[in-house]
């Protein structure tokens, strides 16, 4: 009955505009949050390297070949890079200074043996757990991460021998062996592939294994740092790239492209999120104004309801409930629209060769819930104040 009294006089045009604005704002917000998360996840999950860092090295030129320019980093250069505003953290990639070779150790693969170069980085930079990325002297296996180029080379070799090629999954289940040696000693360790990387061209081993090899079989010459793992702040990829160009540094092209794409897309999505928040703010202002006009038109009705004994809470609740229903309907509609938008965008991205996870991000739902709550709290607060001021006594 109270609803019949209060909503009889309303002109709905402004309400429809506010609702339409809220719908567009909500839709943009959910879509931006969802794809911001998915694009960043995708960039990080493509590789065993978790995307927190880029491997940087000095450019090799004729001068460096003639030993006129050093290709290793000294501590001052590392510190300088560490102090850049875009840098989060710099860590040297550790190298081996002992002889090491890898050989197949399974009947599933043809005998293959090659001298190799191994490097070590912390588990922090990998999509593997620190428990998995650990080695102690008595362990049965040394966990390793293989460069994808290595598997391609192995398959080329298998193809030449007329043997079946090996997938990444199969390679993880077959045994390999490391042979470590120096002039006097030699030892052999079983190894297990736990992942693949396209960002580093050497075989990655846990730091504890590299330290063991350098200590037991090393030539005791000081180790040179030729590569650095550089983590940067979100959206500062351009600054890193500029720095690399001016300091004669380079990174692997694929890492650069992925990093650049993530950086550009993230910036665009953040911009879109900002626009959506602006739309939501404007539509909520419109809705607040609409509520004020509604209450102003019903000043007599509200005052009379208060005078016959209806509490301000009851009147506020009736008005708020109306807007809760309107906003809940708008939010549900925008989420439903997002489902269709997502199907279309995912399809377009797949056609362009970018396959993102199909699942819905809970953060996008959470973002919607958050703005709807803010919306309703603001509306309730405004309605309550307007109702209370309806019976301003003559003081």
């Amino acid at each position, binding site marked *: 009955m109270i609803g019949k009294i209060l909503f009889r006089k309303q002109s709905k045009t402004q309400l429809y505009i506010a609702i339409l604005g809220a719908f567009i704002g909500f839709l943009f917000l959910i879509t931006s949050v969802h794809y911001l998360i998915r694009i960043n996840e995708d960039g990080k999950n493509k590789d065993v390297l978790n995307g927190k860092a880029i491997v940087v090295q000095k450019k090799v030129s004729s001068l460096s070949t003639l030993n006129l320019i050093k290709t290793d980093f000294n501590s001052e250069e590392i510190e300088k890079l560490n102090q850049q505003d875009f840098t989060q953290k710099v860590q040297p990639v550790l190298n081996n200074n002992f002889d090491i070779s890898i050989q197949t150790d399974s009947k599933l693969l043809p005998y293959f043996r090659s001298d190799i170069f191994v490097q070590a980085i912390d588990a922090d930079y990998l999509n593997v757990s620190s428990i998995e990325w650990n080695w102690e002297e008595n362990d049965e296996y040394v966990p390793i991460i293989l460069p994808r180029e290595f598997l391609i080379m192995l398959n080329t070799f298998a193809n030449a021998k007329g043997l079946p090629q090996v997938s990444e999954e199969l390679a993880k289940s077959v045994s390999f062996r490391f042979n470590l040696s120096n002039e006097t000693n030699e030892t052999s360790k079983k190894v297990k592939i736990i992942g693949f990387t396209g960002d580093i061209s050497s075989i990655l081993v846990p730091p504890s294994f590299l330290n063991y090899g350098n200590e037991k079989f090393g030539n005791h010459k000081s180790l040179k740092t030729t590569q650095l793992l550089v983590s940067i702040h979100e959206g500062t990829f351009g600054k890193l790239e500029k720095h690399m160009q001016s300091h004669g540094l380079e990174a692997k092209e694929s890492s650069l492209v992925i990093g650049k794409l993530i950086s550009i897309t993230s910036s665009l999505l953040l911009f879109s999120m900002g626009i959506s928040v602006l739309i939501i703010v404007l539509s909520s202002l419109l809705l607040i104004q609409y509520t004020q006009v509604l209450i102003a038109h019903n000043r007599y009705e509200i005052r*009379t309801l208060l*005078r*016959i*004994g209806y*509490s*301000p*809470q009851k009147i506020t609740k009736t008005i708020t409930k109306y807007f809760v229903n309107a906003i809940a309907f708008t939010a549900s509609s925008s989420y439903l629209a997002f489902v269709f938008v997502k199907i279309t965008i995912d399809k377009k991205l797949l056609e362009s060769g970018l396959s993102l996870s199909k699942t819905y991000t809970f953060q996008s739902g959470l973002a919607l819930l958050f703005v709807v709550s803010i919306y309703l709290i603001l509306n309730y607060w405004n309605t309550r104040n307007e109702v209370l001021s309806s019976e301003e006594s003559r003081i």
Partner: protein
Amino acid sequence: MDLHFDNVIPHALNDIQHKENSVWGNSFTLKKGEKIILNAESGKGKTTFTHILAGIRKDYKGTVQINEKDIRNFSLLKWTELRAQQLSFIFQDLQLFGELTVQENLVLKNQLTHTFTNEELKEMVAQLDISEKWNTPCKLLSLGQQQRVAIIRALIQPFNWLIMDEPFSHLDEKNRNLASSLIQNRVNELQAGLILTSLDENNSVKMDKKLYL
């Protein structure tokens, strides 16, 4: 539930010389169950008096207490609780919802306390001879018919005091007697107090006390 006035003078009437026995500027207590008539000519503050008791006006000096509590300190919520359960009003301007029917106006009020059934509401409407207007929007009724609806609306809640501001001004003698009878029965049933403001003393309700403005 007693109503106590202590040297109350509305700001608007501050410059006027009030009589010695006027309610303005004097201290007195109205006891629950008393039937009081406030008889005065226009412009003396009859409506102001009822509006002060309803919490609508606070532009006065002095204090008014309900159950020994200064009504100036009551919140809007407290006032709406009092208006729903303890103080019932018939305002001079009636304050009906013109778009709602007679039935809807009464049901809206009755929904607050569920004091009467729909049948009992119909019966009261019949007693005041407006049964045929049950489904008519109030804005289409004559002033006299609207006044009768407002009287019934004031009676269908529990109350300790019934405060009426010129409730019979548009009623003929027959309807005034019908309304007075209905009011008296309900007030007696609840052992409530009654305050009636009127331009004249011709109201058919038996009064205990007379106040002057």
